[in-house]
C-alpha cells in the first residue's frame, strides 16, 4: 500500500465524497458511451502507484482498487501523477490541458486510438469539474 499517495488523496476527500454522494448512475446516464467503456486509473508518486478500476458490470457501476501490477481488462488505462489528479479535482487544471501538456497518459485496449478515448474522457471530466465547483 502506498501510504504517501493515499495521504495526498485525503486532501481531496471532501471532493471525492461530494462526488460519491451524487447519484453516479444518473450522472453516468448522461454519458451513454460510459456503459461500454471501462478504465483503470493509475495514480503514482515518488513512492509507488495505486490503481482504481471504474466500469459497468452488467448495469451496475463498479469502482474498486485493483493491483497496479496486474490490472483487470479495461477499455482504457489512464495514468497520471497524484498531484495532477488532485489538481483536476480542485479545478486547478483542465483535463485537456493536462493531456496536451503530457501530464496524462491514455492507453487504449479496444483497438480505438487513445486520442479517441481522450476526447470522450475530456467531456466526462468537464462534467466532473462542473459537479465539484
Amino acid at each position, binding site marked *: 500500500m502506498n501510504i504517501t499517495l493515499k495521504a495526498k488523496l485525503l486532501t481531496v476527500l471532501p471532493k471525492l465524497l461530494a462526488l460519491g454522494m451524487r447519484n453516479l448512475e444518473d450522472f453516468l446516464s448522461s454519458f451513454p458511451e460510459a456503459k461500454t467503456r471501462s478504465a483503470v486509473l493509475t495514480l503514482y508518486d515518488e513512492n509507488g502507484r495505486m490503481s482504481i478500476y471504474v466500469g459497468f458490470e452488467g448495469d451496475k457501476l463498479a469502482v474498486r482498487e485493483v493491483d497496479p501490477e496486474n490490472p483487470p481488462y479495461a477499455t482504457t488505462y489512464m495514468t497520471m501523477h497524484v498531484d495532477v489528479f488532485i489538481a483536476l479535482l480542485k479545478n486547478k487544471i483542465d483535463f485537456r*490541458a493536462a493531456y*496536451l501538456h503530457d501530464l496524462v497518459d491514455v492507453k487504449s485496449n479496444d483497438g480505438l486510438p487513445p*486520442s479517441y478515448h481522450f*476526447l470522450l474522457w475530456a467531456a466526462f471530466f468537464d462534467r466532473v469539474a462542473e459537479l465539484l465547483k
Partner: protein
Amino acid sequence: MIPILITSGKGGVGKSTIAVNLAVALAKHSRVSFLDADLMDPVAHLFFNVNKEKLGEYGKMLKPLQVNENIEFMGLGPFVPRGVGVALNYEKTADFVVTLLKFVHWTGDYLIVDTPPGSIDVNVKLLKELEGRARAVLVGEPHPFALEDNLRMFDLLRLYDVDVRAVVLNKYDMFVKEVAERVAGEYEKLGVPVIKILFDKELQVRVKPELFKDVAEVVA
C-alpha cells in the same frame, strides 16, 4: 468522399482562410466535411463559429460537429482550452491524425483537410493515411521564400500520389509586381493551374466564397 488537402510548405499564407471559403463554396451544391488537421495551431473553428459541445458517438465513431445543414466539422480547436499550448509528441500527434481522419463519422461528398504548414511529420502521416486518394490545393504567396518551401511540398505531395489540382497564390497584389510575376512563372512550370487571389481585407471578418469559385471548380 473525396479528400481535398489545403496545404502549403509555408505558414501564414492563408490556408485556413482558403479552406473555409472553399468549403462554403462547395457546400452550395454538396455536403462538405471539414477536418482541421492543424493540431498545434487550430483556427478554422473560429471562422465557422463552432462551439465546444459534448462530443457524441455514432457506433464506434465520433460524431462531427454540425456547422450548418451542409457543413460538418472536426478538429482539436473547439476542444482545446484557449491559450493552452499543444505539446504533443509525434506518437500522440499521429494518433490524433488517425482519430480525426478515420474514427469520425464523416458524411460529406468532400473532406476538406486544413493541414499544418510544411513538409513535416504530421503531414507525412496524413499523406500516408490518405493512401493516394487525395486531391490538393497548394497555397502560397508570390515571393521566393514561399516558392522554395512549396517546391518541397509539391514534391512530397507527388511522392504520395496526391492529385495537385491547383496552386493558389494568395494576396497576389500585395507583393512587388516583377517578383510576383517571376514566382508565378516558376509555379506555372509545375504543370498545374495557377490561380491568383487578390488581397481582400473583408476576408478577415467574413467568408466570401465567390472569390474562390475558380478553386472550387478545379478541385470538384
